[in-house]
């Protein structure tokens, strides 16, 4: 029986919006801090809602202003709560369309194109404009404008408007604003996306250059000196303490070879789950174990994904080589608790009196570098091992379409 790594690792931490108490609030605040476009949406919608309510209170708009105010409040708060609770909605075209339709319906009900709900309708453009690629975002803005025009015609545009400069100016402004909002937001989001990609690339290049430098120094200097020391020492004979010193030097060379091998193997792709699937497929080809990889993680900062990948790869190797596992389950998840990665096998488990070897030491040092928690769980009875790496602060390259 395979230990259920998923339940073990996530059971306690599954995010729940409905749960009362400070944790809900902190989850909301953390989401807002991480996603600037979501913050913009929430702030703009709150402001537009307040303005609509104020206008409804001050002026008579329809005969049912009280009901309309109640609906506005429900709509505003409800949509904000929904996108914060289910972040998936932020990128869901059906949701955008629904949101725009609802907002424009308010304008229609208000029976006037210069509506207190116009600003509320504009806020429905923020999420699509910042999520879609530039061209499509503009298309969405155009569709919105066309829909607004249709609503305006339906509420009855006084065509004598066209004779009054002030009214014409006001109407065309109402038509232009959605386009301008969409274009500028889409442009900003596009630039931010490029900036982020460029930063990730620069970070990756720096990381690779650093690895090359360390590899070079290790090979060119440290290893050569150890070889020289070994050679000189070995000329003195090979008994007692000399033999011991030679053994130590040989181990040092083996350690360096291992590090060099690590440094030479290429950095894994930024998509952690994909990189692990590739590794799992490699292992499955050469070994007898069946390796499954489940879950997804967003694009992580290279620093995080490299270390997390190596920890998982080492755990996989251990499971297949040393624990003689037949089945290994890898699970990747990124949630409010950060990145959680687990490798569960059905092998013989960790020996009770195990001395941590080179591989395990390197796993721990990588976990420390990430400020992460690394837990090995095994009941020593031959019922498998679960290795869990929890990275609480795993920077995500967020807002990527």
């Amino acid at each position: 029986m395979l230990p259920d790594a998923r339940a073990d690792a996530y059971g306690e931490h599954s995010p729940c919006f409905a749960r009362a108490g400070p944790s809900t609030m902190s989850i909301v605040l953390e989401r807002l801090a991480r996603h600037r476009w979501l913050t913009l949406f929430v702030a703009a919608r709150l402001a537009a809602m307040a303005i609509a309510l104020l206008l409804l209170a001050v002026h008579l708009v329809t005969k049912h202003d009280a009901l309309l105010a109640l609906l506005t409040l429900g709509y505003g708060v409800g949509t904000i709560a929904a996108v914060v609770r289910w972040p998936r909605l932020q990128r869901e075209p059906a949701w955008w369309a629904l949101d725009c339709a609802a907002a424009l319906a308010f304008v229609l009900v208000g029976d006037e194109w210069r509506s207190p709900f116009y600003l509320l309708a504009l806020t429905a453009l923020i999420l699509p404009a910042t999520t879609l690629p530039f061209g499509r975002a503009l298309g969405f803005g155009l569709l919105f404008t066309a829909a607004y025009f249709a609503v305006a015609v339906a509420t009855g545009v006084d065509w004598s408007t066209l004779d009054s400069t002030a009214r014409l100016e006001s109407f065309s402004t109402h038509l232009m604003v959605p386009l301008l909002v969409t274009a500028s937001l889409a442009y900003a989001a596009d630039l931010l996306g490029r900036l982020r990609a460029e930063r990730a690339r620069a970070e990756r290049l720096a990381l690779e250059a650093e690895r090359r430098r360390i590899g070079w120094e290790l090979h060119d200097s440290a290893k050569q000196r150890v070889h020289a020391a070994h050679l000189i020492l070995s000329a003195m004979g090979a008994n007692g303490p000399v033999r011991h010193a030679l053994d130590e030097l040989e181990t040092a060379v083996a350690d360096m070879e291992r590090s060099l091998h690590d440094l030479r193997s290429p950095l894994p792709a930024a998509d952690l789950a994909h990189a692990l699937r590739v590794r799992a497929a490699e292992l499955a080809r050469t070994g007898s174990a069946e390796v499954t990889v489940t879950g997804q993680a967003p694009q992580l900062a290279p620093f995080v994904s490299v270390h997390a990948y190596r920890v998982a790869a080492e755990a996989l190797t251990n499971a297949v080589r040393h624990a003689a596992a037949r089945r290994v389950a890898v699970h990747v998840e990124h949630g409010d608790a950060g990145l959680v990665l687990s490798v569960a096998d059905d092998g013989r488990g960790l020996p009770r009196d195990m001395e941590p070897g080179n591989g395990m030491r390197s796993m721990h040092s990588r976990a420390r570098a990430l400020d992460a928690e690394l837990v090995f769980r095994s009941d020593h009875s031959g019922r498998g091992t679960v290795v869990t790496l929890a990275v609480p602060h795993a920077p995500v390259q967020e807002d990527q379409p």
Partner: protein
Amino acid sequence: MIRILIVDDHPALRAGLNAVLEAEPGFVVVGAADKVEQLFPLLHRTRPDVVLLDYHLPPDDGLRLCRRIKRQIPPPRVLVYSAYADARMRLPALLAGADGLLNKGAGARELFETIRLVAGGRRALGPIGREQLAAAAELVDGDAAPIIAMLMDDTPVPEIAKVLGVPAVAVERRLDRMLDRLRVETPAEPIA
């Protein structure tokens, strides 16, 4: 007396080799070079019996250098002495015309014995197994097999050329290309 020329780019290793070899009766170190430019003048001047050659010699690699050294008349014996010497390097070393191959992790005794063996006209490359041949076959063209086979059988290049009915230079060029394909990767020098 066996006259030895050391070619290695690391000063610690040159010093260590020099000290250890000089202390061994029957050996004399006639020179040490750390760069390719120094090597050939030194080779002409000192006429060593054995060249102890590092594999990793940026910007060149030791095996290509080995081919150049073996073109000298008369060619010295060449022992490739490398931190990367393992089973994978045996076939490339053979193609490069090396007489011996030794890992830098070997002790002084083993080094002395290998030098004596190579100086005595024997080959000390280690066995080239089926595995290495199969791995190499994936990297070189199929019709390279007869050349590899003849080299493993100690056939000199002019004779291989005669058997194949091509000029000797063609075989040499062919060997250069095969060596390029069979390169053993070592860490790259970082771009400053």
